[in-house]
């Protein structure tokens, strides 16, 4: 499995696309900058939704806050993925072996599974426009904050390992 992955990533790295990202003076720094800005925008939306679930913000139903912010979070996440792919491509085989990057992938997977779980377990209840949020959903909101912050820390640390 490792060899197959190394094959695909090696091909990506050696592709014309990989050459383009390595050779263009502007593309890589712009993607890097946009990646960080998109992360801030993403986390702002996610944090606001999590804060509402945790009861740290009041006045609007959780359903209303989520309905308004989720589309922006999704859009920001799309930008993160696209720019992340630009950053990944030129040295894919090196990055996939980086322990900080691996932990980052684990954190992202956990954060996404957390969202799925929250949606399935409490989605209907929250969309019922309840003002109070059950304890399980609050726990998921706390996990969300922790996991996305861990993801950001891992991302920064790739350069140091």
């Amino acid at each position, binding site marked *: 499995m490792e060899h197959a992955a190394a094959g695909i990533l090696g091909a990506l790295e050696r592709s014309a696309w990989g050459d383009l*990202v*390595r*050779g*263009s*003076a*502007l*593309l*890589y*720094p712009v993607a890097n900058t946009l990646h960080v800005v998109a992360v801030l925008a993403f986390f702002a939306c996610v944090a606001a939704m999590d804060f509402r679930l945790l009861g740290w913000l009041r006045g609007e139903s959780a359903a209303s806050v989520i309905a308004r912010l989720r589309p922006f979070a999704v859009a920001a996440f799309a930008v993160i993925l696209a720019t992340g792919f630009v950053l990944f491509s*030129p*040295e894919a085989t090196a990055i996939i*072996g*980086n*322990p900080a990057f*691996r*932990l980052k*992938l*684990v954190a992202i997977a*956990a954060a996404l599974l957390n969202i799925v779980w929250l949606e399935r377990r409490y989605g209907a209840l929250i969309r019922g426009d309840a003002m109070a949020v059950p304890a399980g959903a609050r726990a998921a909101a706390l996990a969300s904050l922790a996991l996305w912050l861990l993801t950001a820390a891992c991302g920064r640390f790739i*350069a*140091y*390992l």
Partner: protein
Amino acid sequence: MRRLAIALAAATALVVPALAHHGWGSYDAANPITLKGPIRKMEFQNPHVHLDVEVEGRKWELTLAPPFRMNNRGAIEALLPVGRVVTAYGYKSKARENEIRAEWIEVEGKRYELR
């Protein structure tokens, strides 16, 4: 709870082996060195520009700045052809033999700061 334990074990299995193979980011900042020799290989690319230089018969790899910074500071690609002699001041890698991270380079009588 059991599924969480399995997930954590899987995560550890993914991350820990990578720790054994990695560590290129550490440089010995306490003991800087200066190298001078002709360029044997040049890679003017992201995320870092790399030069191979020959110093007293040995090959050294120089890790420089990203292309955007190199251009911004005047150390453009045309300045660094194979064969040209370059002086580099930097720090040896703790993880890899004969690799340094260059703080500055001198080419054609001019110094280019890279930090």
